[in-house]
């Protein structure tokens, strides 16, 4: 399985000591947008509520990741993968999330395989086209 960022995935951000504040949370604009789309149109969201949600989401990611990485440690594996995340969600009581996540993971893997086939067929095509596909599939996301 390919790691995002190549060799940089081996870096441990904790070695730097201080974690940049902006790197600790997901962008407030993205979080606010997701909150808004689940609420009625006339609902308003205070900035403090968005900030609290930012903290909660980061805690959720850390909580689930810790459970997943503990499983990897016990099984003497070094890479946390999608299955580990799904397992951790179910273990921690987020059963309702684990099943849609497994379906999402399967769909993602199918797209990956399909994309690799397409990539092979298009070997002679322009680099721009491949870059465009790769951009769509593994976009890292540019927050507003």
């Amino acid at each position: 399985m390919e790691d995002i960022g190549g060799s940089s995935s081996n870096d441990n951000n904790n070695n730097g000591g201080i974690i940049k504040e902006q790197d600790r949370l997901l962008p407030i604009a993205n979080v606010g947008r997701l909150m808004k789309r689940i609420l009625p149109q006339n609902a308003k969201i205070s900035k403090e509520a968005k900030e609290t949600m930012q903290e909660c989401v980061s805690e959720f990611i850390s909580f689930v990741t810790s459970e997943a990485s503990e499983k990897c440690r016990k099984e003497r594996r070094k890479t946390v993968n999608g299955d580990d995340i799904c397992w951790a969600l179910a273990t921690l009581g987020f059963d309702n999330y684990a099943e849609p996540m497994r379906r999402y993971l399967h769909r993602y893997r199918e797209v990956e395989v399909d994309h690799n086939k397409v990539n092979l067929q298009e070997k002679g095509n322009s680099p721009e086209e491949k870059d465009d596909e790769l951009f769509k599939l593994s976009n890292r996301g540019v927050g507003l």
Partner: protein
Amino acid sequence: MRQAGAYSGLLCGGVSGRTGPHSLPLARIKKIMKNSGEDVKMISGEAPIIFSKACELFIEELTRRSWIMAIQGKRRTLHKEDLASAVIATDIFDFLITLVSSSESHAVGGATNVMEVETIDCS
């Protein structure tokens, strides 16, 4: 020939074109995963992608439950107290109680909220 259907599920899932199918930045999710513990060594490319979707579900659920609290308070603006109430009322959000409590304590100038919440495990 590429099959359009193969991509539609993922490509149409996003909130805006700028982030493709994922409404949350994958690189940031990965950094948060890395910072969750010393023993998080390597992370596969698919893990942040799964998390971007799981976080959407999480945000939606906590927002929905918080909104119920706001409505019960006869308000149309979601406040952070509503999130705290929703966290306290929901078992699977127990891991957030300390976070939302310290947030409240800070807001109230150090006042400590004594919460006697007992979670009875019925499993």
